């Protein structure tokens, strides 16, 4: 089956005028398969939000081409707006209005008739667990409730592509889980979700594919497993009890596995890639024991997405 793409960006460029004149997007490429959750991962200021604003027609880009839900962003922004929804970093609801009034307002602005907007508002309040709070002002909602109202507002027209810009930043773990559940529900209905996040576990949990963004461009792309595999093999980690003996331990480990480990004196830790998990572990254990070094911890770890991320962004910084 041929993959269709819900979002395509080719060599997007955006430089902010005035001030520091920073280049926010510097040849940004992206292909988001339809019907999936796609994660844009990157540190603050990497260009994630600029990319989302450009793709949602909020910001004009200087060069490049973008297509969202089958429409050209630069040439036909009206059609794009009909097919997308955006939930930004700051809950985009009217604080003075109640939850229900918000949904009716945005329903009306989506050109639903009054009765249709009210019906849809009630459906969405029910679905996002806000029926009880429907009459309260949005400013009195908790952070999690506000995000859910925000998501509900984005779902009024059942968008083809939903953009979520750091949807769980600043939320407690319980609210974060609620938002994740809501996002999974939307994807089950066929919506494509493009999500930006600084949280690796969030991308790992939700996204089928991830693009790591740094300095305005995508520096790596793939499924979470592919990204982890790309950074290389499993790692042997040794934590010694005595910081003084770290270099001695490093020599012993190097002899055992045939490669020099990275030493982190603050954590009294050594790290070295190994191809043979069990063989590497036993050889290292024996070598350390023979050298008479007391070990506080010893193990073999799969690289975390954190390491992938730090590695990639560090590589880009060089």
């Amino acid at each position, binding site marked *: 089956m041929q993959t269709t793409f819900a979002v395509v960006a080719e060599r997007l460029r955006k430089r902010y005028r005035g001030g520091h004149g920073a280049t926010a997007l510097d040849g940004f490429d992206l292909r988001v398969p339809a019907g999936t959750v796609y994660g844009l991962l990157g540190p603050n200021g990497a260009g994630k939000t600029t990319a989302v604003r450009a793709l949602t027609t909020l910001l004009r880009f200087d060069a490049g081409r973008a297509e969202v839900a089958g429409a050209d962003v630069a040439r036909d922004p009206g059609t794009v*707006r*009909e097919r997308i929804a955006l939930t*930004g970093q700051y809950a985009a*609801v009217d604080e003075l*209005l109640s939850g229900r009034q918000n949904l009716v307002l945005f329903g009306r602005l989506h050109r639903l008739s009054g009765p249709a907007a009210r019906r849809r508002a009630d459906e969405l309040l029910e679905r996002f667990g806000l029926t009880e709070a429907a009459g309260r002002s949005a400013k009195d909602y908790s952070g999690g409730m506000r995000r859910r109202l925000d998501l509900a*507002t984005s779902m009024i027209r059942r968008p*083809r592509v939903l953009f979520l810009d750091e949807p769980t930043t600043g939320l407690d773990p319980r609210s974060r889980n609620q938002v994740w559940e809501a996002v999974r529900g939307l994807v089950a209905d066929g919506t494509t979700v493009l999500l930006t996040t600084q949280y690796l576990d969030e991308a790992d949990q939700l996204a089928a594919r991830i693009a790591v963004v740094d300095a305005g461009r995508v520096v790596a792309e793939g499924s979470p497993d592919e990204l982890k595999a790309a950074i290389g093999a499993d790692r042997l980690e040794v934590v010694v009890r005595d910081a003084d003996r770290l270099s001695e331990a490093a020599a012993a480990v190097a002899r055992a596995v045939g490669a020099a480990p990275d030493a982190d004196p603050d954590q009294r830790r050594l790290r070295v890639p190994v191809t043979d998990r069990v063989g590497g572990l036993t050889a290292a254990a024996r070598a350390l024991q023979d050298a008479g070094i007391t070990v506080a911890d010893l193990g073999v770890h799969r690289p975390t997405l954190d390491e992938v991320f730090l590695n990639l962004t560090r590589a880009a910084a060089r």
Partner: protein
Amino acid sequence: MTGVRAERGGALADGWVMTGRYLRHVVRAPEEIVIYFSLPIMFVLVFGYVFGSGMSVPGGGGYREFLIPGVFVMTMLYGIGATATAIAVDTGRGVLDRFRSMPMARSALITGRVLADLSRALLETAVLLACGLLVGWRWHHGAGPLLASIGLLLLLRLALSCAGVALGLVAPNPDTVSMIVFPLAFPLSAVSNVFVAPEMMPGWLGTVSEWNPISATTAAIRELNGNPGLGGETWAADHSLLLAVAWPVALIAVFGPLSVRLYRRLGR
């Protein structure tokens, strides 16, 4: 997959929905409008009763009858703050991004705010008319000129509303709005014919005061309703009706397109 089906509607329909939004804000947070009303009522009391005894109106007549048309106009002037604050609050929040990422008319935010301002202005005028009647103000020439006066007030408010939108769009945040509005609005109302007739001011100040747009509408309302304090013998005083139309129209011609341009520029 198709979305929930949209029914057709245009920019006007969107603007109207947005008007409803701003009016709902008044209903849900009535404090703002109560505080808003306290200002003109305070002016009537302070100037009408405290200073009023020491004030004289050229050509004779009661000071409060002279004052009330000016208070109507001043209330329209201070409305600029409410407009600019509301717009600055909207542009400073994520909600504007949502509006702008939706398939609605982009003009709706501006037209909605302006229409809501005019609705508020009607309510304000009604309250002030009642206050005016209580303190002795009267319309002496019947309903026609009274309605024309209300029309002039709404026209001025429309102009100030456009200016308020522009101000709200350039203000870095809602808190700075009042810091900009007060030093702007206070001299405009003080150096006008609202409290003191221009001919009683020193030469050049009187001229500035006479040509002030606030004075134009105030003088026109006095003239239309037969209230005391009509100036005379200067061109501006003789043509207050013309100026009361020309000034707002000129302000709309400047600030209307400026607001639209500032609003469009937000995305660049």
